[in-house]
């Protein structure tokens, strides 16, 4: 008699897989990576390579020798964390610092909580904030774009948001605007900033690709960008001398990178659409509050980490719309 497999339905499965999703995100980041290599040259290549290899290595070492589980360092998530970490560092940062950041990202950010799927905070952002606190000087010296063959010896300057923050202490927006790159340059990515955050155009292409592949939905990025646009727009309308216009806020800092890639991290963002909207609006508001009223010129990283912390609460109390209203049991 034939022996057949007997298992419960369903009997067929989609071809979705974790590596497929992870490498899908990575593919969507290639345009932004290309722009960064174009502007930051060898520095971008070095930090990206070091960051990805370090994340894979630390994940392998921790899983094999500390957690004693089968390593999953090639499932794409370590590569993605490494790429994201590189994207939010200055391209001239010494590579040993990148390795420390990778250890913080994978070790503290991910493995401490039990590995993929269990972490509360976005690992790449944990790595970034760790470096930001440990090496404040290196983490705020931004190379000028266009120095292809320079790495740690690149000429540095301030980011548009930094110029704005600094300048507003003495002057009004109208006087500062000529000192920051034009909107076209901001959009294309010719500015100082973290290695992968500079080109809004390339990041938006990545977002559309991820939406087309159904890797992410519009809810998180659109609610963050929309909230920042509205909030800064209202402030700008109230006093255009004190507050920069909303387009400036959309195109500068890590907002695009944060809204499209950091906040949409599956593990650390809410799981239903209503929750995603609450999370996105919250991140948008906190980002603007930090940028305009806080001590730092840029606030996306902290806003996302704060709302990562709220995610379990959102998941518990915000429910998807259920099918059908209740009837009395009888």
């Amino acid at each position: 008699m034939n022996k057949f497999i007997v298992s419960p339905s369903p009997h067929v499965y989609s071809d979705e897989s974790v590596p497929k999703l992870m490498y899908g995100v990575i593919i969507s980041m290639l345009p932004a990576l290309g722009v960064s290599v174009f502007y930051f040259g060898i520095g971008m290549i070095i930090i990206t390579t070091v960051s990805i290899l370090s994340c894979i290595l630390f994940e392998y070492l921790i899983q094999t020798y500390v957690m004693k589980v089968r390593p999953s360092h090639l499932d794409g998530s370590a590569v993605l964390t490494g790429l994201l970490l590189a994207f939010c560092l200055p391209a001239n940062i010494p590579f040993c610092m990148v390795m420390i950041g990778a250890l913080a990202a994978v070790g503290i950010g991910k493995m401490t909580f039990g590995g993929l799927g269990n972490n509360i905070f976005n690992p790449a952002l944990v790595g970034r904030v760790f470096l930001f606190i440990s090496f404040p000087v290196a983490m705020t010296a931004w190379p000028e774009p266009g120095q292809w063959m320079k790495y740690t010896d690149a000429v540095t300057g301030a980011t548009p948001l930094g110029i704005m923050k600094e300048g507003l202490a003495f002057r009004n927006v109208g006087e500062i605007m000529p000192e920051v790159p034009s909107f076209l340059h901001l959009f294309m990515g010719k500015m100082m900033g973290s290695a992968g955050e500079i080109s809004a155009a390339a990041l938006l292409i990545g977002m559309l690709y991820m939406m087309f592949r159904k890797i992410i939905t519009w809810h998180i990025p659109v609610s963050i960008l929309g909230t920042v646009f509205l909030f800064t727009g209202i402030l700008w309308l109230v006093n255009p001398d004190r507050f920069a216009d909303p387009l400036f806020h959309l195109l500068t800092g890590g907002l695009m990178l944060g809204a499209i890639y950091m906040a949409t991290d599956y593990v650390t963002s809410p799981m239903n659409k209503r929750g995603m909207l609450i999370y996105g609006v919250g991140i948008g508001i906190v980002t603007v509050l930090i940028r305009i009223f806080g001590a730092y010129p840029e606030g996306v990283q902290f806003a996302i980490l704060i709302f990562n912390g709220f995610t379990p609460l959102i998941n518990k109390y915000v429910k998807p719309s259920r099918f059908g209203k209740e009837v009395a049991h009888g």
Partner: protein
Amino acid sequence: MKKPPNSLSMRLKTFARGGVHPPELKLSSGQPIEELAPPETVVIPLSQHLGVPSEVLVARGDEVKVGQPIASAAGFVSTNIHSSVSGKVLKVDNFMDSTGYRRMAVQIQVEGDTWIDTVDRSDDLVPKTVLSGGDIRKKILEAGIVGLGGATFPSHVKLTVPSGKKAEYLIINGVECEPFLTADHALMLERSDELFSGIQIMMKGLGVEKAIVGIENNKPDAIEAMKRVTAGSPVKVQGLKVKYPQGGEKQLVQALLKREVPSGGLPIDVGVVVFNVGTVSAVYDAVMKNRPLIERVVTVTGKSLVNPSNFRVRIGTPVSHLIEAAGGLPEQTAKVINGGPMMGKALASLDVPVVKGTSGILLLDETEARRKEVLPCIRCAKCIGVCPMGLEPYLLMTLSEKAMYERMEEEKVLDCIECGSCSYTCPSSRPLLDYIRLGKGEVNKLIRARKS
């Protein structure tokens, strides 16, 4: 592939939440319904329907004719069962059925093909009935008709509207959203006139003025055929976007009428009763032709099968007989499914009989049948996105693993229709529905304990 005409592709409807679109793989589409000769012996289970098993009327050695009752309804939610062949009763004993359990059944040795003489075996179409609603329901019970879509709920019960409720619409389910299956499609093409007559009988039985036939747009020829026969009548034919699980009652009612069946309720709570096209065909045969439910259309299919087919099969025919008729069991077959790939049940043996609820026999190869390695949940929320009931499968699975059944009840686990969209879509191949089913069982136990 044939493109649907423009008039059909316009204004397609579908349900609101979730859903997936697995490859359709309707290999046997376009195959005519082929009459399959009775096998040497049949095994007719006494429990082929939802509800109380029927009471056996025959004993070992009895001679039976085709269409003769061999078991009778043992309560209101129960039904009659008829011999599908003529011959001699070999045994009334426990036989393995499609559930994998051994349960009471009547085994009959086939001799000739002698029918009871009340059955009208001609093909002449009888378009109208003079019977009253009550008589129609009686005939349907007599003929042993149950829902042929797979749920096998006795049809006379569904046609009896509970007091305080009012039926407004009859909905005919021609969706056939399960991949591979084509039995309903074939019926709509070959028996559209009979189906139209059957729909009118059921409208009368139910006392409603309006009926809608819902058909997915991957069957444009069926939509056209049904539109042609129903033209000028109060029966409407509505094309639907291809999306699984549109054939689920609640999803279909929502797609067609934008009405949501309440949690824990039935379509009748929103004035609707839903029947499958196979059931309508059986109702026509019963009411107009005095022909009890002794056969049904079964799709036999699979990628490695030589001749994927639609067979008209006598109830009780062993599954192996159908597979032989479709070209024999391919060597690489690893899984045999009673029904479609999304909601069907895997069979342990090919000796089990075709029953009233068998809509298809699907053979899967080794490569298709194996489950993938389970990885940790990455919280991608795809399971929530595809759940047609607005549930959170990832959460229900975790609660089930941790035996938190009361919380599962609060999270509406009993609303789950077990469509399998969550397990289908999970990139980590997590057995979501397995755990949800387990939890549902436990929650039902809790509720029963609370009542007693």
